[in-house]
């Protein structure tokens, strides 16, 4: 039989997961809007960002309320981790919005003739987000730890894309404007991967009570 | 709720209330009657002479019960000297020390002793001190018998009062590293002191009126007593002697003596009430 406090903790978990699915959807849609030059989709992403922001506020309020009941041990860790994760999810939402903005801008101009495998980078980043949230649900510390090194792959891809875009800009100065949009978009994806890594670190703290932020070799 | 039910209940209520009230009045009535008679018969005879003079020889009028009043006080003082230390220390033992079996036996004995008729006490002391001429009819024997009667009374009231002292005080004192005996004296007894004094005074009020045992220990005396090995007068004894005598003047003085005795007991009780009044209103 759950008591009211535990029901409060469950409600917090549920809200966090709902926020997560909104954030994931936003990233998916933003990337799609970018690749398919879909301005309507881009607009939807920007509108939905308010929803994600609102979730962060709600989750923080729920967490503060739970803190007044002085939770201890694993409950305490859950509440503080929930606040951190919601912050990361909100930033992911912001990054998705940035991608959507660039998608809208790019769609208004002719496409750049450069092959960038953005979908692959997006898939990697999204997979990191999904796996981080799964590890939260499963309370699986090992799975969370496994996500952290994958950030490097996304960073590498980002660097590679920037180099190619830089080259293209030098060779085709008339594409500079559009290439800059692409640079911003890929940077946003790289940041999304960073936030997924942060979420994984929080999950490790939740499960093991170990703070592994800033400790693993970059 | 139907009307007849209601009024039957009301009637029962009122009936019981009236009955209880009447019984309460009935309880107080004998006391009031006693007062009334004593005051009516005895008040006029109370004068300075009554308190200071010796009884006149048979047949003569006048005189007083000076020696009887002094005698009562002398006997009470001796009774206190015997009864208070033994009774209080006995009560301390029962409350603060002792295994449960021994305590039970002592308490049982004390309760029986409290119920022993006073004349039995009288006869025992008569045998021990009077018949054996150790020292015979004397103030000492009278004091001893009253003291013996006080012991179990004081012991039980002391024990009860000490038991009322919360254990927390004992624990707090012991936890300060204060030795057990000092804890008992300086903390427990000190806290219960009013109650112990009350118990002693009430015991004294009780034995002040004992007549039967004094008849064959103190014996009575028409003159001043000069030392404790001589017989001594006491109010109850003198009242008895005069009341069954043939002279009206003696009867008059017996009434006065009874009134004085009642006033003595009354003032002890009032004194106890005064002592135990609630001096501070404790904060909630």
């Amino acid at each position, binding site marked *: 039989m759950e008591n009211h406090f535990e029901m409060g903790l469950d409600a917090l978990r549920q809200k966090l997961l709902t926020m997560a699915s909104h954030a994931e959807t936003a990233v998916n849609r933003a990337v799609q809007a970018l690749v398919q030059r879909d301005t309507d989709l881009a607009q939807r992403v920007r509108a939905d960002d308010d929803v994600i922001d609102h979730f962060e506020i709600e989750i923080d309020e729920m967490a503060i309320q739970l803190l007044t009941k002085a939770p201890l041990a*694993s409950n305490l860790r859950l509440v503080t981790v929930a606040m951190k994760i919601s912050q990361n999810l909100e930033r992911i939402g912001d990054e998705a919005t940035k991608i959507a903005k660039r998608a809208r801008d790019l769609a208004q101009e002719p496409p750049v003739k450069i092959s960038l495998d953005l979908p692959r980078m997006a898939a990697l980043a999204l997979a990191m987000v999904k796996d981080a949230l799964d590890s939260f649900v499963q309370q699986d510390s090992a799975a969370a730890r496994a996500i952290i090194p994958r950030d490097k792959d996304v960073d590498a891809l980002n660097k590679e894309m920037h180099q190619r875009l830089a080259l293209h800009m030098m060779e085709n100065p008339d594409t500079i404007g559009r290439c800059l949009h692409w640079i911003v978009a890929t940077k946003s994806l790289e940041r999304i991967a960073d936030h997924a890594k942060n979420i994984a670190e929080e999950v490790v703290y939740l499960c093991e009570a170990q703070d592994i932020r800033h400790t693993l070799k970059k | 709720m139907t009307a007849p039910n209601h009024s039957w209940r009301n009637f029962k209520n009122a009936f019981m209330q009236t009955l209880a009230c009447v019984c309460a009045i009935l309880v107080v009535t004998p006391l009031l009657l006693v007062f009334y008679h004593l005051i009516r018969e005895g008040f006029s005879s109370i004068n300075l002479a009554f308190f200071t003079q010796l009884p006149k020889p048979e047949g003569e009028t006048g005189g007083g019960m000076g020696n009887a009043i002094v005698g009562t006080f002398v006997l009470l003082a001796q009774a206190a000297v015997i009864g208070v230390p033994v009774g209080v220390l006995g009560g301390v033992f029962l409350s603060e020390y002792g295994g449960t079996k021994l305590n039970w036996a002592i308490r049982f004995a004390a309760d029986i002793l409290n119920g022993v008729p006073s004349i039995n006490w009288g006869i025992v002391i008569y045998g021990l001190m009077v018949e054996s001429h150790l020292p015979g009819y004397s103030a000492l024997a009278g004091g001893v018998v009253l003291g013996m009667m006080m012991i179990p009374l004081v012991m039980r009231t002391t024990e009860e009062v000490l038991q009322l002292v919360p254990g927390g005080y004992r624990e707090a004192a012991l936890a300060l590293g204060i030795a057990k005996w000092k804890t008992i004296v300086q903390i427990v007894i000190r806290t219960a002191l009013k109650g112990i004094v009350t118990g002693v005074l009430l015991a004294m009020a009780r034995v002040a009126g004992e007549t039967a045992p004094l008849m064959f220990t103190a014996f009575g005396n028409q003159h001043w007593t000069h030392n404790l090995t001589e017989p001594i007068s006491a109010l109850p004894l003198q009242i008895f002697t005069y009341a069954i005598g043939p002279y009206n003047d003696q009867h008059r003085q017996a009434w006065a003596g009874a009134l004085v005795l009642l006033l003595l007991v009354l003032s002890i009780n009032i004194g106890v009430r005064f002592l135990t009044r609630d001096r501070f209103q404790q904060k909630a």
Partner: protein
Amino acid sequence: MPTDPNNSAAALTVRGLSVFFGDRAAVKNVSIDITAKAVTAIIGPSGCGKSTFLRAINRMHELNPDARMEGEIKLFDEDIYSRTVQSVTVRRRIGMVFQKSNPFPTMSIFENVTVGLRLNGIRDRKILAERTEESLRMAALWDEVKDRLNAPAVSLSGGQQQRLCIARALAVQPEVLLMDEPASALDPLATAKIEDLIVSLKKDYTIVIVTHNMQQAARASDFTAFFYLGELVEFGPTTKIFTNPAQKRTEDYVTGRFG
């Protein structure tokens, strides 16, 4: 770390302590090191033996004729149960404050504070006055009562009375102070004052406090011991016990799943 048996900063070392009432074991084979000049809290559900354990430390369980103990307790390497040591001596070095405040009702504030000194032979007025002020200051009560030291002790409020009892215990200058749920009979404001007091006292005293209030243990203590059914289940720094306990039973108790 406090569980190191060779810890030289341990004020009390307990080894294999068991306390029996008749046949029933209230405390079972407990070994623990209490760090000097720190606050150690003892938590656990009702009936887990924490009060019995506390009272064994200053030999107060001996007041119960059925009580019997086994094991060893040392105060700074001196065996407090050795045949040559009297319980009176132990209690002068290890003081105790109780759940229900119990200032002696026939005595004034001053008399209460100095009772432990006076009844142990110290009569020098100067010393008594100094110790009174010192103890009342340490108990955070001096400013409130300094003008009425001769007022009856029972005229103080509940929280003040408890602080008076703390001052009374401190006046005999013990090395260790044991507190058995000292704030459980008080309102939240008075409780907060007591907790604050405990934290400031640890500079000079070793304190062991039994509490059923986990938040109080979390607020006021450096180390926490969790007792269950007479056994010591877990002992460690308070932060660890309340953020990441090692034993599942501790975790369950602390998160409110039982008890």
